[in-house]
């Protein structure tokens, strides 16, 4: 069995952003369910939050390959 330990580390580091993205979209769905007319505004905020937490996972991916 061969492989890179870096990738295992990346897998572990992706747990946190995964949870974060889940929380962001859960809150977005809740918000839209409560106030459907605010969808447009919430969508922008949700995608910015998603991008922010996803960025951490992407940094992990970069470090997994770069180091």
């Amino acid at each position: 069995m061969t492989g890179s330990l870096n990738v295992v580390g990346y897998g572990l580091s992706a747990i946190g952003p995964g949870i974060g993205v889940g929380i962001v979209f859960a809150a977005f769905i809740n918000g839209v369910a409560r106030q459907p007319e605010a969808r447009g505004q919430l969508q922008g905020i949700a995608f910015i939050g998603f991008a922010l937490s996803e960025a951490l996972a992407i940094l992990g991916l970069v470090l997994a390959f770069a180091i």
Partner: protein
Amino acid sequence: MTTLATAPAPGFDAPGVDAFDLPPIFGPVTKPVVLLVLSAVIIYVLFRLAVRRPQLVPSKGQFMGEAFHGMVRNTIARDMIGPEFLRFVPFLTALFAFVLVNNLFGIIPLIQFPTFAHPGVPYALAVIVWLVYNTVGIRHHGFFGYLRVSTWPPDVPWWVRIILTPIEFLSNILLRPVTLSLRLFGNMFAGHLLLVLFVLGGDYMLFVADSITLKLLSPFAFGMAIVFTFFEAFVQVVQAYIFVMLTASYIGSAIADDH
């Protein structure tokens, strides 16, 4: 014959990053280069066909072109950018079409390689997006006004600002294009690797492995490859959508008057 029969089958060599090392067709031209040109030609031809004879009551082709353009225009650009959205609709639509077609190359038979599984073009597109939203923001607020809008969130105590302002600068100015390009690249890379893994795995089980059990189980590997092809189709569309969505939201936050 006997040597072949007695020799143990080689172990399964799982595909890795070397699956993405494509040999050049001639000179520096590799498969992704051809695909990039092909995607641009396909998009241009389809759009030209859609507007060949523009009518009030659209033909089928015109309707599909309008649906595509209208989707980017009304659900992405208008919601994300605000009143000045019309200026950015051509850029966003072209971006969406370009990313979408290149992504979908990953599941189109005989092509089967998502161009953006190589990071070059995502980097280039992210740089273009970075230039666009920073230019727009600076033009709208002035240089220092734009810096203040993007790194100086209002109603924050000073001791939070010490940490927050560098983070905002880092995330809004420096990290945005990096994450934007790497998100696209990472998804395409992983998706393609997944498909290659299942196909090569099934191939190994059916043709190379000695064990009869593995030969019998190989259809499951191919079945998984088919299931993941559908999943990849979904992911590719979603990634193209998110790429354009985030671009629009960066432009929108750059020209928004309040943070």
